[in-house]
């Protein structure tokens, strides 16, 4: 199994994909802000860690990038989910649900064997 860094990388990637699915095309800052909000400010990570993750997702073909203009007419690089990304997101969502369900059974109190 990968070490903590890899696990974190995986989770971060999932969060990025979900964010893009929910919000549509978004720039790096926006994604970072959104993740922070959604996680209820429980995660206090550097925004900087996002960019390598974005690069990896782009290299793997799950997102694509394009330069555009923000609301304030500022030049920014926008990321968008690709079809492969959508499929991957669905797959990972299902996997996470499965994992949590199994773990829940293990960790749930009262399910003791006689």
């Amino acid at each position, binding site marked *: 199994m990968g070490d903590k860094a890899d696990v974190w990388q995986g989770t971060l990637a999932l969060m990025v994909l979900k964010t893009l699915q929910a919000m549509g095309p978004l*720039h*790096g*800052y926006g994604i970072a802000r959104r993740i922070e909000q959604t996680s209820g400010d429980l995660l206090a990570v550097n925004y900087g860690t996002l960019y390598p993750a974005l690069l*990896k997702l782009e*290299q793997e073909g799950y997102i694509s990038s394009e330069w555009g203009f923000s609301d304030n007419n*500022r030049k*920014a690089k926008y990321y968008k989910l690709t079809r492969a990304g959508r499929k991957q997101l669905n797959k990972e969502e299902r996997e996470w649900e499965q994992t949590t369900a199994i773990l829940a059974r293990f960790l749930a109190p009262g399910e003791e064997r006689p």
Partner: protein
Amino acid sequence: MRHLRAWFIRLGGLLSKDRRERELTAELESHLAMHIEDSLRTGKSPAQARREAIMKLGGVEQTKENYRERCGVPLLEAFYQDLRFGARMLRKNPGFTLVAVLTLALGIAANSTIFSFVSAVLYVKPPVSDPDRLAVVYGLSPIHMWGAGLYPVSAPNYFTWKHENQVFSELAASNPYNSLNLTGDGDPERVSAARVTANYFSMLGASPELGRTFAAGEDHEGYDHVAVLSHRLWERKFGSDPGLIGKAIRLNNERYTVIGVMPLQFRLMSFQGEVWIPLVLNESQQSAAARQERNLYLFGRLKAGVTLETAQANVKTLGALAAKNFPETDNGWEANSLSLQEYVIRDFNAGSAFILLLSAVGLVLLIACANISGLMLARATGRSKEMAVRIAIGAGRTRLVRQLMTEALLIAALGACVGLALTLVGERVMQAALSFNDAVKLLELKIDWRVVSFTSAIAVLSALLFGLAPALKARSVEIFATLKNESATVSSSKKKNRLRSILVAGEVALAVVLLSGAGILIQGIVEGMRRNMGFDPQRILTAQITLPESRYKEASAQIQFYRELASRLSSMPGAKSAAITSVLPGAGPEEIPFRLRGQENLPAGELAHARYCVVSTHYFEVSGTTIIAGRDFSVADDGHAPLVALVSEKLAEQFFPHGDVVGSQIRIDSADAGANQWRTIVGIVQNVKGWPLRSIDDPEIYEPFEQHPMAEAAVMVRANGDANSLAPALREAVWSIDRDQPIGEVMSLPDILENEVAGDKIMGKMMGTFAVFALVLSGIGIYGLVAYTVGQRRQEIGIRVALGARKESILSLVIMDGLKLALIGVAVGLTCALPLPKAFGSLFQDYHISGGWIFLSVPVLITGVAMLACYLPARRSSRVDPIVALRYE
């Protein structure tokens, strides 16, 4: 799958770094700008907003760094960086680079040349189809006298094994060492011929260049007068005439139709036949005599799916069966089988030669690596500040090691390229040197993929070897001490240079081993040649004559011819005396089992063997061999007189320990029953060497020619002056008796002997060359170290001189240090070299190997070179101006 895509993009990312860099900077800037805007909106001050934004980002440079690592392939990029840096470093130190590259190139070239030779022999493609499925079946004698001990088998063996083997789809036989007289077209000539079964060519899958090869049934009586010519004979004698097919030639005065010509490349092992004719065997001939005539080499094609090991087992069983069923003739004999390739190597006894050569050049390469390592160590000390700074800024030590290894690889790569170029030269030289042997001459030494792979491999290996020491040393650099610039004042530099000293001592040891090995070998050769051969080859001219059966069927006719010839030859102007012999002295074996009285009923397998020769009167006079006891053959020992024989000293010693040799009886046990007659020994002859470098004496039996005439013999003429000048007269003498008699190989005896030892001499020369390389390289190594140490100790020397030391004491100081090292190396090397004589003794059984004065002269030689190598830099150091030295920082 996705990962692969990512990797590819990363690889591509190596190329577009600048663009990515700009994009990233722009992206991060816009990120920060947006963050700051948001912060401003919540009321923070611009400065605060900016600081917060950067902190939240986690540092711009850090982010960039993390990003960059994902962008390309960091490992490759680092490597590329190291390469460029290394190349720059090498360019800045041209002297070092030149010496290192040349030294390595020399070592690599030597190795690659020998390797290309070995690979050419090992991987030579025999001109047959599917050579991996071909095997040679041979016999192993219970006692063997010569060389590799791989014997041919008998015809009954062939027939039995052909029917009863389970592993060969086809078996063919060849009797390769015949000579026939070719007459009719121009001068009569003796040609070497191989008699082969009809399926020989078809089984081998060898196609003719012209015409066809034998068809089934042509090895039977009545259909067998067909012949296939070799390309060389066709070219030389018949002018490459394509219309020769279908024409007739006269071999041994019988008419043979030429049906085909084989291409130039067709040769199998050491058989240099010029003509192939069918081998007619009579399967019903199963007598004991037929069993003892072993002259067939068997070639078999393995059945599909059968491995060589299975075949070997089967053949061994068959051999054991033959020994059991026919104990009088085959007792003690074994059979075995080898693949074609292995047989060639065994036959040439090439295995040990290869090992020796490869070891020698391997040692040379090691010494070269040690030299380069020393050079790099010297340079490393000079760069210690650079290393310290780099570590201080944050380069991992492993990164440093990687960088130094990359530099080493760079040198290795350069060395390999130059080395390959030098290998071309080396191959030319080697090819020229090996042209003495026809089989070897045809080898093509070229730089193929095997040689290139080998060169690359040893280049990388060398890089690892010589790069390791300095790389490890760099790892242990003490940052603070170096950066604070604490130069070694007057401290002894011995500890610092320990690694280098070990390297130099090691070099010297290796050189000692190599020199000793070469010395022993060369001494063996020289000794062997100088040793008294038992005869005097000088000024003797020889020729081979084969009387064709058609004209000289009767023994009386043969005797008549040779008697007349001997008399005409000895009365030639310029000739002292002449004689006839079945085998020239020193020119190889012809061994035969024999019996003494009391051994009449011993089974054939238990008989002792002796070398065997049929000679005319005056033979011992011509060859210069002394009769030690009894008498020589005389004209009285003719066909009507009692049968006599002569034996050598060795036979007398070995089989008649109580004396009374003269008067005892002896009988040879040959395949020809008519020749096996009891003879009375009338004298003892001096031992004669069977072969120029042979160190052992063999028992020998001589019979007088007139009592055992043969059709095939050699004539020997002792000339008053130059032997070769008598050649035309010799030919005239033969043709004056019989115009159609072909004469084969008119050569002086010294030339013949020279040819026999040519191979060994080449080996000796090669080993000697490598030993000299080793010596020179170690000398350079010692010189380098001493020069460097002297440079380091300038201050110390300056102080000594200032305090009053004289030039001589400085000289001796420096030289002593260097010599101590050399002596340690010599001691170690000698210890390693001591077992060499014994090792060589088992590898080269015929040589006379002794350790002796080699172990004395090699140390002296090396010490001498070491002293010279130390003296030169020492001289310079003793001239140091103390003021300059002390001021030098």
